[in-house]
């Protein structure tokens, strides 16, 4: 138990260091990119421009800005958004997060269920017709841009069949199409990785032993091979979960979903420094936690790997 505690403490310290590095790098990058948050097509009088910048501390030197922003961030205050000026970044993230989590969870469920089932079936029917068919579908899931898939699904399920709403946010009905589009490429990856991993483990001695013991193929696959076979999937899941939970700009745009995905890109394009920083830090945290879970899951799935 003490081992685990030590491991977690160490990881926490690493997290703090990572956050600081990411903060600093992002800060420098953002300020070096041309353009600014209050540059507009309709140019305002230089006097007013200066006043706006002063209101957001942008008139100070970069060092002063860095110290001020870092201080506020440490206290958990990400500051006001530069482009949605009625809100603070904390409010924007807090409002977007449940939506992204809801959509992301649904997408993840779809991806995991479809991916693992397809991958396992395909591995145990290696080379057969089912294998080829499933892998073909999975590959198409990877090969087509998600906006093409989304447009086709809208055309079929919304316009032709009128089963689902075209876009927007509200009940579960609104989430089905976007969650599917969001999860589809992940499902395809998971299917392929599962298949590969399963094939690898199916040739291992302990699996052969299980076969030899006379266990049914189903028991062999789910009871013995599955654990080792899911290793590559677990490795992939860390970044995948972070990616799926933060959503996608394209999907959010097509389905008009007010989630976090748009901010990641839009804040950068708008030079909304505070919101962009909030997104980056949030994402760092998410990736970090997910990878931690992956590392822990490694020790569970593969007894040879130790927590260290």
């Amino acid at each position: 138990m003490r081992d685990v505690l030590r491991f977690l403490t160490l990881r926490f310290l690493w997290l703090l260091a990572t956050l600081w590095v990411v903060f600093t790098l992002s800060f420098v990058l953002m300020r070096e990119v041309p353009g600014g948050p209050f540059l507009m097509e309709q140019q305002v009088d230089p006097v007013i421009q200066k006043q706006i910048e002063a209101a957001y501390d942008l008139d100070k030197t970069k060092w002063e800005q860095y110290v001020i922003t870092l201080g506020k961030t440490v206290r958990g205050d990400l500051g006001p958004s530069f482009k949605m000026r009625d809100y603070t970044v904390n409010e924007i993230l807090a409002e977007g997060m449940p939506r992204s989590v809801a959509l992301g969870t649904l997408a993840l469920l779809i991806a995991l269920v479809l991916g693992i089932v397809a991958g396992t079936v395909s591995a145990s029917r290696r080379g057969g017709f089912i294998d080829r068919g499933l892998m073909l579908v999975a590959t198409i899931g990877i090969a087509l841009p998600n906006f093409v898939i989304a447009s086709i699904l809208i055309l079929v399920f919304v316009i032709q069949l009128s089963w689902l709403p075209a876009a927007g946010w509200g009940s579960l009905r609104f989430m089905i199409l976007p969650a599917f589009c969001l999860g589809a490429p992940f499902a395809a990856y998971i299917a392929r990785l599962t298949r590969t991993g399963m094939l690898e483990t199916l040739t291992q001695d302990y699996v052969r032993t299980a076969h030899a013991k006379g266990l049914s193929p189903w028991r062999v696959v789910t009871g013995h091979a599955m654990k080792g076979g899911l290793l590559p999937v677990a490795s992939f899941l860390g970044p995948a979960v972070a990616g799926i939970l933060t959503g996608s700009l394209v999907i959010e745009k097509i389905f008009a979903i007010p989630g976090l995905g748009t901010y990641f890109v839009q804040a950068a394009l708008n030079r909304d420094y505070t919101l962009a920083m909030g997104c980056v830090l949030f994402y760092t945290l998410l990736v970090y936690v997910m990878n931690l879970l992956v590392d822990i899951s490694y020790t569970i799935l593969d007894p040879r790997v130790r927590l260290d």
Partner: protein
Amino acid sequence: MRRDRIRNAFAFSLGAILLIGAGIATTGASIEPADLTFHNATEPESLDPAKVTGVPEGRVLRALFSGLTVQAPDSSESLPDIAESWNISPNGKVYTFRIRKTARWSDGSPCTADDFVYSWRRLFAPETAAKYAYLMWAVDGAEDYTKGKLKDAAKIGVAAPDPYTFVVKLREPQSYFIYLTAFYPSYAVHRATLEAHPKHWHKPEFFVGNGPFTLQMRLIRERMRFVKNEYYWDAANVKLETVDALPIEDNGTALNLYLTGAIDWTTDVPAHVVPQLLQRDDFKPTPRLGIYFYRINQNNKDPIKKAFFGEPRVRRALYLALDRKAICERVTRAGDVPARHIVPPGLDGYESPKLPDYDPVEAARLMQAALSHLKMSKAPTFSILYNTQDTHKLIAEVVQSGWRKHLGLDVKLENMEWQSYLKTESSFEYDISRAGWIGDYPDPNTFLDLWQTGNGNNRTGWSDPDFDRLIVLASKEVDVRKRLGLLAKAEARALAGQVVIPIYFYVTKNCVRPWIKGWHANVQDRHNLKFLSIDKDLRRRMIGR
């Protein structure tokens, strides 16, 4: 043993995460649709009328606030709103507004002249940093106050001799000033709420406005719901009970929602479907006060390009070799008007001088003449800068191909995201750049004064003392006809100097369902929700909702 425990904990936490997520996923419930739902292109930057400049913000602010006057639904005329009447002194410098005794804020308190005095002073205050403050700088002392030269707010030319009289003193007459009193920067805000909740007054739980509607719900980038303001002085004539504004960025998505009956009014449509939409009754593009044009950098950092673009014949040749008609008919296809001048048509009493029409042969001749005059064997390679958008790209590709074909120019395209584009343009690092300009008020001046030397919106480096003089003369002229005459002369100068390359005048692109009554096209494309109503029977018959 220990591993088992970890494994269990892991499985448990993973399961818990999934369950919680699924829980959130299923709890969201659809809300009852509003009487009217419309497509507002983006999440408003703010609900503070002093701090915003955009079109989507305008749609929202016109519902939540009222000005002294309100723009008529079908023209640019100013109708009484919070001010029941007004008069203008003979020298055109003093406006006296009579505030309605029945004007109320949405919390029931009276809306008086003092509110306007407070709000206008706030608009001009340096710490407000209002981007649109300059529009109202005709008010005596306002400019000096914003710029910090005048410290005492009481010296700004606004006063409330009694709660129902609001007096504005201008430093010089401004014929279009009355239009500005219907424009959102001049709206009044509720002082008590602002002072009690300086950071949160625009949230639904605190919001107090004096408009026909008030804010019931605001979900970031999801929905804004307005409900009728029972205290509004004209509440008896406001027909809609609830209105939803959906901030939908993609107009293709908005069109899908419109066609499936989820929204009743879209404010923009994708270019691909314009020909199909034109066959419908609910899509009627009408002229709009706006122009699409190309800026030419005449202050180029590269000396060769500076000489090249500084030569008026080069600029004229570029203009002549650009097939505006083809762009309107083949690319935008919504009936946009090919532009041969700068001020859009549709302004009463103003007639623009015109440039010659598309003429590639003459263009080639001019370009040859210019090149030999400049002693250049060939024109420099240059690029057209545009911000990322389908239509901009298509137009740039057409222009590029035309200039290549008719003038033999080597033209590159340079695509940038919005902020880089703005930065490149305003720092004169471009050659040719696409641009648009929407009139702030219905007067030629809003399309002309930006070309004055040193104006922050000029951004071409073009400078003509005669032009500058004409604009100043016009701003001091009280007689309407003489003033418009001076402006027309100024425009003729700008055209003769080919300050920019006009391409086309915008049209509005609204899709409006027939059950929306009281909706009228107007050149500023401003539609106050106060005038709209819904024919529910018709809607039920058509889509069953």
